[in-house]
Structures are given as structure tokens and as C-alpha cells.
């Protein structure tokens, strides 16, 4: 059993809300249905996790979270997720660009392959990465059982997010504006910075946040490739699993709650920044 994948659901929801701010029909009825659905699928489970985390009071919560192994696991998870999100921001945008704009041969094949990390059970991904980049690597690359391995596994799992959020925006992008700017003497860099980037930035940010939130909760692929050494390579999800196996569900819920809060803070921050940018333009 893997730890609650709830943080990814929580992270995935808000951007959808933003695009569907006003429903065109029967707001009361649809609103009610939406409420029931979100409650059953997201809010009640998340509420239960959070309420369980404080079963032994706030000091108990704090003790669980600041226990050396738990704290180290949380730190590793957050740092690795930030790194992974930033790499995704750059590489994902590049990939989306290539898929939309460059007529590379085999583009369609790439386009299909991008989504495969979503379809593959992550434990299989972990196993495959381990065989390829582990101690008996046919490529001579031994990244396993170290923090590098964690980052590689997370990169694999989170690849589609930025690509798939940026791609449709790039497709819709009106090229007349770029051509107009270019004909007025703007350099390609200026065109990118002034015309393209402002349009795709919200999508880039949304994809990056999704990738970050997904990375926070990843279990299947990291459990195999990280080596799970407490304080060194054990990620939060594996630490949580250990807490559950030791019948310490309060501790497991406490660490999960921290992950949820981190994801929430990042989502809110992103929202604030987006509004600020939108107002400035």
C-alpha cells in the first residue's frame, strides 16, 4: 500500500477551478454536485488525515515531525522536489516547444511517449531505472542508492506535467504577433521574452507546481532506487510507510500533513504571483 496520493489530487484541483470560474448552467445544482464529489473524493479524506495528525495534541504533532528521521526525510523530499520541479520547468517547456514548433522527424512518436510515465506503475519505473542505472548498469551509470537516484526517479515520474500544460497553450498561440514583432525589428530573444513567455508563463508555472506536488508524494519509484537509508536517502513517503507499518498512524498523518501544507503553500504562492504578474501587465 502506498501512502495517500492525496496531495497530488489537492494540487491538481485548483488550476481546474480557475478555468471554470463561472459555470454556464444551473449553478446551484452543479455547485452542489461538485461539493459532494469534492468532499467524498478529496476534502473528507484530507480532513481525516489532518485531524488524525493531531491525535496526540500539537506537541505530539511537532514531536513526530521533528523526529530526526522524519525531519530528514521531509527535507530531502522538499529539496529533491524543488530541484525536480525546476528541471521540469526548463526541460518540459523545451520539449513542449519542440513538439509544437519544430518539425523534428518522429515528433508524433515522442508526443505519444511523453505520457507513458503516467501509465507505468511507478514501482515498475523504479525497477527499470534500478536495472539501467543501478550497480549492474549496462550503461555504466551507477546512480542508485543515493540522492541522485531519487531525483532521477522523480524526473521520470513527473515528466509529463509541464509538457502537457505548456503544449496546448503553445498550439493556440497566435503567430501573427510574433511575426509582427519580428517585422518591427525585435530579436528572436525579445520576441520570446515579450510575446511568448508572458502567454505561456501561467501554464509553465501550473505544470511546475503539479510536478512539485507529485514529486512530494512519490513512493513507488523512489522506494526502490533510493536505498531508503534513514537520514540520507529515505524520502518522506517511505518514512510514512514505516510509521504505518509500526502502527504509528498519528506520526504518518503528521508527516503527511506537513507535505500537504507545503503543497498548499506552494499553490497559494503561485496563485499570488500569477495575480501580481497579471496586474502588472
Amino acid at each position, binding site marked *: 500500500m502506498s501512502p495517500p496520493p492525496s496531495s497530488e489530487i489537492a494540487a491538481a484541483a485548483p488550476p481546474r477551478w480557475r478555468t471554470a470560474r463561472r459555470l454556464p448552467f444551473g449553478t446551484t445544482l452543479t455547485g452542489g454536485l461538485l461539493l459532494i464529489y*469534492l*468532499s467524498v473524493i478529496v476534502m*473528507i479524506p484530507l480532513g481525516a488525515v489532518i485531524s488524525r495528525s493531531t491525535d496526540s495534541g500539537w506537541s505530539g504533532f511537532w514531536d513526530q515531525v521533528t523526529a530526526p*528521521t522524519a525531519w530528514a526525510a521531509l527535507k530531502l523530499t522538499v529539496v529533491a522536489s524543488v530541484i525536480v520541479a525546476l528541471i521540469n520547468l526548463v526541460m518540459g517547456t523545451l520539449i513542449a516547444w519542440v513538439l509544437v514548433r519544430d518539425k523534428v522527424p518522429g515528433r508524433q512518436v515522442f508526443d505519444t511517449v511523453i505520457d507513458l510515465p503516467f501509465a507505468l506503475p511507478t514501482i515498475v519505473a523504479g525497477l527499470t531505472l534500478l536495472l539501467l542505472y543501478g550497480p549492474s548498469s549496462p550503461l555504466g551509470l551507477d546512480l542508485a542508492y543515493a540522492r541522485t537516484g531519487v531525483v532521477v526517479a522523480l524526473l521520470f515520474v513527473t515528466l509529463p506535467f509541464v509538457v502537457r500544460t505548456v503544449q496546448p497553450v503553445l498550439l493556440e498561440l497566435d503567430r501573427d504577433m510574433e511575426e509582427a514583432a519580428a517585422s518591427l525589428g525585435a530579436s528572436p530573444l525579445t520576441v520570446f521574452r515579450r510575446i511568448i513567455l508572458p502567454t505561456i508563463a501561467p501554464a509553465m508555472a501550473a505544470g511546475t507546481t503539479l510536478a512539485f506536488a507529485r514529486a512530494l508524494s512519490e513512493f513507488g519509484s523512489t522506494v*526502490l532506487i533510493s536505498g531508503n*537509508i534513514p*537520514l540520507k536517502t529515505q524520502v518522506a513517503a517511505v518514512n510514512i510507510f514505516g510509521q504505518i*507499518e509500526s502502527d504509528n498512524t498519528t506520526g504518518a498523518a503528521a508527516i503527511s500533513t506537513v507535505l500537504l501544507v507545503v503543497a498548499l503553500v506552494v499553490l497559494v504562492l503561485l496563485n499570488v504571483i500569477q495575480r501580481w504578474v497579471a496586474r502588472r501587465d
Partner: protein
Amino acid sequence: MGTSRKFATAGIALGAAAALGLTGCSGSSASAGGSSGGKVKLSLVAYSTPQAAYEKIIAAFQKTPAGKNVEFTQSYGASGDQSRAVAAGLPADVVEFSLAPDMKRLVDANLVAPTWDQNQYKGIVTDSVVAIVTRTGNPKGIKDWPDLIKPGVEVITPNPFTSGGARWNVMAAYGGTVAEGASDAQAQAYLGTLFKHVPVQDDSARASLQTFTGGKGDALLSYENDAIFAQQNGQAVDYTVPDNTIKIENPAAVTSTSKHPTQAKAFLDFLYTDTAQKIFSDNGYRPVVAADATRTFPTPSGLFDISKFGGWDAVTTKFFDATNGVLAKIEQGLGVATTK
């Protein structure tokens, strides 16, 4: 913000009502199931390793008069997960786990009678021992507990907090060291040193086996039956059973919530027959009933069991408490001390 909070509260209330409605439905539909056409369906919930054995045992059971009209749904998974699933409501008639604390969880939840261990085999259907698995030919000459902490030796064992089964390994190493003359404190120190030689702490015994056969480490702490399983699957490994090692005992029981207690009991009894015990031994387990097994399992001279340390309750508190246990302290120490 005010409206959105109202929104959330209303949602939770509505959702709770919907959830209650759902449980109501599933409850009634479950009781509508059950026996149809004289056939009885038993649900077997077990830990993962005996799956191959159970498939053969079930086929054999269905050939007996008692098992003629019995069909099975089978569920296999990590022992702790399976136990928690049953405790949370997964229907089960017969359960088998890799260690007694997972059974105790069900006793505490009133799902298994406290007398489950009162038969002549103390509720245990199979035994095994903790063995030291090495590369073929044992190039580093690792045969006993002190060999594991020699300089440069890498040992693979699952994390005892994510793998309940790995606790057998820890207690084997602890008890083996005590049997060779160490005091309690010295044996605990040995465990601390041992874990500094562990470069990978997988989440389960199977994952550890995978890590080891994937080329990592010089020795793997493993159940004897898993070592035999690896050899049967053509892995290039040898194994040694140390003279002083622990007897692994796998408990099985009928649940008190079983709708077909007669058939469930008949199946549990069948597990102790020569037929079933022989199938277990073919799959690497040590039979608890002296059957004429095809495989011989030499008994180590210093074999001990968990009762030597006061039973699992005492052991869990002393060694595996998540905050104050000996192993929790050892894990916490891993980051501080210098490794190897």
C-alpha cells in the same frame, strides 16, 4: 473567504451523508451474497511468499471430501498491509501472516479468537529460519554473525520499520550474538554496527532479494524459504544457516467473522495434513508436522525462538517502538556516526 468556508463546511456535511449512504448500500449487498448452489466461497488473506504453495494446497484441498464444494478468493500482499486491511474490514475467512503481531492486531480488533494459538502447533503452520545469503561460492567467506560486520562487507536487509518481516532478521542477529556470548548491551551495539554495513534498506524482503540479486551487497539476511525460492528461480546465490539463529514462525487462523466457519476450519486443519505440509516444504518452508519431506532441513544447533526474548509484545516495545525502540535509536544514529 467567508463564503468559501461555508462552501467547505456544507461540502463536508453533504459528503459525509453521501459516504454514510454508500456504506449502507455496500453492507446490504454483502449480506445478500454468500453461498449459491451448494458452493461455499472462502476468502484467504495471506502474506505474499506462500502464494505458490497455497495455489497447490487449495487444489489439493478441493479434491478432499471436505473441500469439494469450496471455492476460494485469494489475496496476497505484505503481511502488515494484509493484516491492516482485514482489521479495516476486508472480508476474510482464513488468514496467514509472516509474524504473530499481525495476528495480534486482529485479536485486538475482535476478528480472531484469542485462542487462535491454542492448537498443538500453537497456531503456526510453517516455520523457517533466518539465513545468510551470499554470492555463489561465498567469496567473502561469510558464515556467521561476526562475519557480517567485517570491514568492507555490505549487508542487505529490509528496513525493520517498513518490513515487519525484517524484524525476524534483526532478532536473529541480536539473539545469535547473545548466544555467542554477548551481553544485551553488546548485542545491541552489534546491531548498531551491523546497520552501518547496510547500504540499502528496502521496504520489503522481496525488494531486498531484488537488490541483492541485482548486484548490490555481499550478504543478504533472508528467510531460508526465500533463499530457496531464489535458488529455485535460478539466481546465483548460496546460503548458510548460522548455528545460532531464530526460528521463524508463520501463524494462521480462522476469523471469528467467517460466514463459513466449518469450511474455514476444515481448510485450516488441512494445512496441517501431510499433503499440505509437503507442498509447503517443496516451496522452501520447514514443515511443522513431521512429514516425509522431499527436502531435508538440518536443525541448527543453537536454534532459538522469539519466546527467548519474552515474545513479540515485549520485543516490539523494546526494539521496534517507532520513537524509543533500540532500532529507532540505531536508525537515528546512522546519520550522525561515520559509516564504514
